[in-house]
């Protein structure tokens, strides 16, 4: 089984995010960038498939030069190869543009299985995996919580309201994974050192025979109008009742009149 995992580098979710004063995006100064958690689960699942069925795991990332760090993280976990795609024309590309680029990369390599995270924790869009399957013309299942590989077919489970949906999907296929699918391994020291020495191939749009006008900012059908920080939380109101009864009355009054939940 040759598995391709598409990953994204995102800001560390444990750090506060600042929006630029002009609302044009987030302030990247001092941000710590990490491999998207969902993609970490996808890499883990790919490694487990390789352990059970043999084959290779290749990670692919579209993003600026710093995105190679996310690829190194995946290599340190145990992926065999990493492919990085960047081109200045991709600055401002939308999800469909990125999906088309990924499709072109995947098409050029052996792929029995393509895995992605269910979403990226930066914009929570959940678009790329599904769009990638469309561009590749492959079967897909999203947000899978279990994967079993059979002969030319995969059995996957999706957690749906009130139950589990079991699907049998012909391979090759594209799956996006839920975080419940596994617990990702942490890298070992030998893994980290091996990853440092691995060469990461960087491809441009020209290398992939893609036209910037079709995948880059020029082709984007989505443009961000403005970014706003979440509203500041107001300070709570403190009341000092004379008696427990008055306290209860004030709370009831608040729930009824101000919060309007009663």
């Amino acid at each position, binding site marked *: 089984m040759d598995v391709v995992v598409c990953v994204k580098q995102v800001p560390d979710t444990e750090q506060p995010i600042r929006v630029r004063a002009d609302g044009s995006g987030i302030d990247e100064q001092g941000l710590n960038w990490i491999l998207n958690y969902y993609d970490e689960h996808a890499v883990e699942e790919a490694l487990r498939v390789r352990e059970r069925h043999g084959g290779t795991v290749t990670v692919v990332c579209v993003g600026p030069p710093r995105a190679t*760090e996310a690829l*190194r*993280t995946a290599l340190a976990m145990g992926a065999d190869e990493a492919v990085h795609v960047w081109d200045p024309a991709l600055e401002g590309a939308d999800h469909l543009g990125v999906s088309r680029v990924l499709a072109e990369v995947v098409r050029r390599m052996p792929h029995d299985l393509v895995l992605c995270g269910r979403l990226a924790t930066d914009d929570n869009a959940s678009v790329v995996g599904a769009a990638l399957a469309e561009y590749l013309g492959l079967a897909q299942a999203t947000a899978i919580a279990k994967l079993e590989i059979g002969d030319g077919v995969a059995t996957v489970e999706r957690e749906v309201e009130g139950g589990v949906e079991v699907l049998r999907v012909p391979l090759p296929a594209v799956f996006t994974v839920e975080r419940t699918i596994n617990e990702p391994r*942490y*890298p*070992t*020291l030998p893994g980290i050192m091996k990853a440092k020495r691995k060469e990461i191939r960087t491809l441009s749009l020209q290398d992939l025979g893609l036209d910037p006008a079709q995948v880059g900012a020029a082709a984007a059908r989505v443009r961000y109008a403005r970014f706003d920080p979440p509203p500041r939380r107001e300070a709570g109101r403190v009341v000092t009742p004379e008696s427990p009864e008055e306290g209860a009355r004030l709370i009831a009054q608040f729930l009824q009149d101000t919060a309007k939940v009663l």
Partner: protein
Amino acid sequence: MPGPDSYRDLREGVRKLCARFPESYWRELDEREEYPEAFVRAMTEAGYLAALIPPEYGGAGLGVAEASVILEEVHRSGGNAAACHAQMYVMGAILRHGTPEQKQRYLPPIARGELRLQAFAVTEPEAGSDTPSIRTTAVRRGDRYVISGQKVWISRVQHSDLMLLLARTTPADQTRRRGEGLSLFLVDLRANLGKTVHVRPIRTMINHHTAEVFLEDLEVPLEDRIGEEGQGFRCILDGMNVERILIAAECVGDGDYFVDRAVAYAKERRVFGRPIGQNQGVQFPLAQAYARVRAADLMRFRAAELYDAGLPCGPEANMAKLLAAEASWEAANAALQTFGGYGFAREYPIERKFRETRLYQVAPVSTNLVLAYLAHNVLGLPRSY
């Protein structure tokens, strides 16, 4: 000097492992005075404790700088590497002074973690910092040595398969120099524990597994002597610098831990209608502690850089340990003051680490002895010890 991101991958890897061992893990162990077995196993299996062992013996072959970053990150996460840091460096005596056969026999299983060599028996009730006055003796009888005596403060001996042991082979009055006549031995605890080696644990103010060790006619085969007979003190001295640098890094990790936690708390905790961190009385001690931690951090990397380049680094290694231990203690104090009463609460993060970081001004070398060393060896003042 390495840039801020020089060890990014390594730091990220260690952080991921440490994330599996949150503060609640360490707190519960502390309450039960238990050894962090699961953590030590994870560190071993991930290969971190074999960082300093050359690749030909199955280790990563990294420098002291990288090894120190590993331990620093453990401490910064809220953990404590004292339970296993010696597995990283005690083997250095075999690596530097062992015969090819000894290296081949011991280093690969140590690298794999099958053998734990993390006890180092030097100090005695009558000889702490004054190593040459130890009284444990080893007498050669045919193809073996017979060793008797008593050791104290032997950390992790309860969790080791092998122990390095320093004993006197020639009486002090028959040697040319005080430091001569001592020899270094590798003791197989598995074969001798409960027979000729007896261990009595010492309970301490922190969850640190240390003990008294009693040796009664312990037999050690000739082939388990490390280095020349009578040259044991020299064999352990060159390992001291590595230990100093690694401990300094643990202190830097502790210092950053305290500053991180205290700053977060100072931003959040509101008194008199504003975050306490808005008060200079709270800010300044934290800023001061931060600055001292950063300065100690530079000295740590300077010492590591010299060591890894094969250059003398005694003064720098000692200064790194001195400055880092003081900086972590200052940061601990600033954090405790910032947390106020909550700093004393067991369920808050500060008090355990506060107790733990205090150790480093006492062990593995006391601050006074570092100063005495600097005064004599660097400043050329008369020897005071």
